[in-house]
């Protein structure tokens, strides 16, 4: 896995619309902080892209602890979208990010369509940002807390609003907690999304029988990690087979083999999430592993394997 192949031997470059990546391996929002947290452990300049922790218009304190709990081959989190708010993000985090030789994608979130639009607008003027990823798994406060990402019309509305507010490529990040993921993807494609990324976390819960209390203070939380990979891969395959825009695959990816499953299923790029916690070098190892795979399979470019799973 770790054998280094010279970069010129094989071509890992992919394009997400106008966004050019040197390789398809990105890090997922909320699992890589604002990148600086990993700068001692990971060569950030080798990554295909970095998606930073979700940013809202105003700073948010997040949920009370406990916020994380381990589950079988996964974890639940209920961070509650803690973040410094867009203004402090711009002054405190962007200067470091701007100097990276790696595309930076800003993950945004909001309580209302207007909030999404405002934050997209504010970030549009900021130098050093390559794209926006829109987290639509958030509750729509005006609609009684139903998540934007579970109702096609609401997802489309957010997409159109962000699309209008920015000239950056817009990636809509889909929630897996839906009956029909293809319907959601089509809705945001029609509303102007340049790309969809999926999946966000599955909603889950854990209880401590000794205390008879939920293990998370927030009661429910988002399930991530290897446990969800089969569900994520199925959804990526379904979406990639049914939309024309590029798809970014997310969910339990730890190894090059995992990443290849998503690429073969039709993802143009992938994001490494929870794996950053237990294996901080996962993204770098995946990049090396993809090169080895191309080499072994005698393929010249990663683009030649995207979507080539033989389901017939």
């Amino acid at each position, binding site marked *: 896995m770790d054998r280094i192949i010279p970069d010129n031997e094989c071509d890992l470059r992919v394009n997400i619309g106008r966004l050019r990546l040197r390789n398809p391996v990105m890090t997922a929002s909320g699992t890589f902080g604002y990148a600086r947290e990993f700068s001692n*452990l990971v060569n950030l300049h080798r990554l295909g892209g970095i998606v930073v922790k979700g940013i809202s218009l105003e700073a948010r*304190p997040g949920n009370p602890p406990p916020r994380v709990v381990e589950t079988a081959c996964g974890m639940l989190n209920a961070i509650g979208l803690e973040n410094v708010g867009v203004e402090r993000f711009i002054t405190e985090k962007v200067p470091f990010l701007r100097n990276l030789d790696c595309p930076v994608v800003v993950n945004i979130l909001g309580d209302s369509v207007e909030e999404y639009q405002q934050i997209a607008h504010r970030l549009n003027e900021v130098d050093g940002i390559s794209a926006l990823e829109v987290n639509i798994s958030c509750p729509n406060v005006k609609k009684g807390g139903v998540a934007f990402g579970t109702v096609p019309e609401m997802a489309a509305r957010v997409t159109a609003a962000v699309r209008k507010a920015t000239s950056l490529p817009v990636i809509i990040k889909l929630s897996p907690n839906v009956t029909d993921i293809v319907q959601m993807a089509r809705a945001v494609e029609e509303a102007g999304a340049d790309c969809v990324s999926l999946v966000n976390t599955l909603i889950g819960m854990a209880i401590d029988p000794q205390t008879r209390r939920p293990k998370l203070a927030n009661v429910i939380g988002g399930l991530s990690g290897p446990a969800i990979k089969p569900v994520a891969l199925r959804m990526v395959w379904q979406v990639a087979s049914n939309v024309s825009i590029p798809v970014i695959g997310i969910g339990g990816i730890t190894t090059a083999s995992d990443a290849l499953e998503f690429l073969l299923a039709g993802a143009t790029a992938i994001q490494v999430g929870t794996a950053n916690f237990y294996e901080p070098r996962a993204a770098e190892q995946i990049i090396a592993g993809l090169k080895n795979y191309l080499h072994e399979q005698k393929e010249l470019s990663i683009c030649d394997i995207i979507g080539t799973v033989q389901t017939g």
Partner: protein
Amino acid sequence: MPEFQEKCRVSAIEQLASDVFRLTVHAPLIAGAAHPGQFVMVRVVDGFDPLLRRPFSIHQQFAGGSLKLLFKVIGQGTHILSGLAAGDTISLLGPLGRGFDLACREPVCLIGGGMGIAPLAFLAKRLALSGRDSSLDFVLLGARDGDEVSSLADDFSQLGYTVVPATDDGSLGHHGFIPELLDDVLPAVSRVYSCGPYPMMRTVVAKCQKADVVCQVSLETHMACGLGACLGCTVQGNSGQYVHVCKQGPVFYSGEVAWTE
């Protein structure tokens, strides 16, 4: 501050009590950069069950590049660690977090309860090596019973400290809890370093505050990353905001965090 990921060879594992183990690993990069009070994140298996790394204080550090971890078997992760043998390898991430502030020339008191004793050994050694008169410094160690604490107490005595053990069952030293010993000691020290169960530390902090003695505490919370990235390790700060134990801690001045029932 430097942080490293190292594949480390286990050089020894000792069983100190029925469920307490001490692991020695060769981790030259981490050992070289470690400061007392910092911790490491340990990956206990190659597979995904358990998935997350486990946080452990750096218990001892040696110039040759070795580290010792002291741990109690709690669940799956520590159970697996207790089964390691010399020659096995494990992955460590560290040194992580903010450690103890050593800039105190006056007499100090180290207070450890249970596995909270772990980081104090490293702290005691660093303090002792800084040329102080350790016989003026106190070490109060609380444990279930003598088995758990006796060999640990020796480590501190050898460095010249005045060690007072307290055990729940009275099998060694004071029969009862650590804080009960504190009233006698506080007038003689100008700083307290503490690590242990939350209720113990809350009492220690209250007594220090009353006696106007500066107190540093090392906290535990559930951690997914240990790197400041997941934002999972929050505790309530002193003024309403949350603080992140892995990055702003695990060692805090007692006034930095809120102390609740």
